[in-house]
């Protein structure tokens, strides 16, 4: 070796010398996360950020314009025109029942999230902390069902909903999503590490029944993971289209179904369509601004274990 490698310099001459040597040789000390990001990294990231955000901004730009202007300028100006609220008003006055759709979306998302969190936490508590015969195989079964594309059962599911008289009713959308394999698995994983046995035993010794133990010990411990699960379920529910589209139809739509109606009814009027798109996207973007941090953490935590 002509020159000592960087770690060797660090060992012998100290960190400062190593860093200087690294600068001279244009390679980094350390690796992975220890690397100081250079300006190239920030340029790439800024570019990615623009790609992420621009389509949404583009929708808003068209929503603030009008059909004529949009037809003339395929590339919209960088600043919005002033017609956004006129277009919004036209969306609200159109016959897609925007408010009803909005209310439906909120109801479905809230009910689904609450019920997924409740039942997943119950099941997770049981799988993670209670002893019962068949626990292992049953948990494996839950995980295996994640790979089953349940969407493919929609024909019989629709038949079942018709028999129950639920077609066109929100129950048809809420009930099938009340508890998910992902949720059960997620809560099991979390509670295994976050809930010490001592707490459960203490509660049992104090004479608490199982359900009291769950309520007073498991629920507080599960809170952080539960809020993440609620977020993911909310996003999933808000953005889902196929099943609501089939089972609800246009008479009692959720937001995505209503926006789709906007396209098939007023396909010449881009400003109107984009105003509807913007309205449907804004609530979740607001949620994202406040809770995006948890979503990021949730994906990264689930990934390490998954």
């Amino acid at each position, binding site marked *: 070796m002509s020159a000592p490698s960087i770690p060797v310099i660090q060992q012998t001459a100290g960190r400062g010398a190593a860093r200087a040597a690294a600068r001279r040789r244009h390679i980094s000390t*350390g*690796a*992975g*996360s220890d690397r*100081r990001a250079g300006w190239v*990294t920030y340029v790439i*990231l800024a570019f*990615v*950020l623009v790609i*992420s955000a621009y*389509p949404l901004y583009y*929708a808003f730009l068209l929503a603030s314009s009008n059909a004529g202007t949009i037809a003339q300028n*395929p*590339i*919209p100006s960088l600043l919005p025109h002033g017609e956004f609220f006129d277009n919004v008003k036209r969306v609200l006055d159109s016959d897609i029942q925007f408010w009803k759709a909005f209310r439906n979306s909120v109801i479905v998302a809230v009910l689904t999230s609450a019920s997924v969190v409740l039942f997943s936490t119950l*099941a997770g*508590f049981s799988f993670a902390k*209670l*002893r*019962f015969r068949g626990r292992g195989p049953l948990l494996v079964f*839950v995980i295996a069902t994640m*790979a*089953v*594309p*349940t*969407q493919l*059962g929609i*024909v*019989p599911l*629709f038949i*079942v909903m018709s028999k129950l008289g639920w077609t066109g009713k929100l129950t048809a959308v809420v*009930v099938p999503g009340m*508890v998910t*394999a992902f949720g*059960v698995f997620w809560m099991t994983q979390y509670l295994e590490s976050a809930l010490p046995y001592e*707490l459960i035993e203490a509660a*049992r*010794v104090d*004479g*608490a*029944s*199982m359900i009291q133990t*769950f309520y*007073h*010990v498991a629920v507080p411990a599960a809170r952080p993971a539960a809020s993440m699960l609620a977020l993911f379920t909310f*996003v999933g529910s808000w*953005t889902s*289209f196929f099943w609501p589209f*089939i089972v609800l139809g246009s008479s009692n739509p959720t937001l995505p179904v209503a926006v789709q109606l906007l396209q*098939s009814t007023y*396909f010449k009027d881009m400003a109107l369509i984009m105003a509807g798109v913007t309205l449907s*996207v804004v609530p979740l*973007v607001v949620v994202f601004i406040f809770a*995006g941090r948890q979503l*990021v953490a949730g994906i*990264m*935590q689930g*990934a*390490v274990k*998954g």
Partner: protein
Amino acid sequence: MTTSTTPHLDRRPSPPTRDRDPRRVGLRQKLGRWDVKLSPYLYISPFFILFAIVGLFPLAYTAYVSMHKWHLIGGEGAFVGFDNFAFVLQQPNFWRALRNTFSIFLLSSVPQIFVAIILAAVLDANLRARTFWRMGVLLPYVVAPVAVSLIFSKLFADQSGMINTILNNIGLDSIRWHADVLSSHFAIATMVNFRWIGYNTLIFLAAMQAVPRDLYEAAILDGAARMRQFFSITVPMLRPTIIFVVVTSTIGGLQIFDEPRMFDQFGQGGADRQWLTVTMYLYELGWGAQKSFGRAAAVAWILFLIIVAVGVINFSLTRRISTDTAPKSGRKAKR
């Protein structure tokens, strides 16, 4: 932390033994024992009951429906054996849909995984405002596919679309995004990628941060440059994660419906059905003009079998490929 709401039992809290109290064998004791025995099953039952009703039963029942004439309004008709399957397999539109589905799936999954790994490597540095950049990557995930599809359909419009206009401005010809088969697949795959790249990036990023640091240190001592470290350590260590992402994107990708359905205002998959997908075809058979649930169920079953087959192939392929990329010489990451 724990508060007990029950009146305490008339015994001193002792170190936990099985709930045995020799002095009182009464109703309460029996109830307590049942509580311990049954509660675990009770708590996990909601999932199993619901899965039986909306997962397992429909999949099995799909087989039954697919063997019958079955009308959306009229309901169950005569038993016809495999006629529905035969009918579907004779339809040119089915094969078209199958081709399109696979084409869109490959165009979205393969670049998606490559870009996600590269982006994760970019994010896996000592960044300022780390969470901000991660959130920026994830933003598209909260936008509904329907909205993404409408926005991108306009961006990709043939006549007055922004992308074609930019192409013309730099002296290239317009691309017929809504007319040509491959171009339309590319446009739809772009929508899928837009929404999922960020999500998968974060999954890969988490996996990268779990790679033991001493592997990198050893590689540096061996004189490996950063590129070499990436291909010899990072990528092989990501193998389980790559398999996971491939499997999930297969299950989702082969069922694609929302984006192609919204790519134009008719939702038929184009004039020549150039972007009709299998799930769109299923919808058309069951809820379109024919209203034939039997045939729709047959398509669902065929698609189910395809997904299972592709999943198995994927799994073995991914395993093989990622073992091959592991370095033959030098340090091999111990798993």
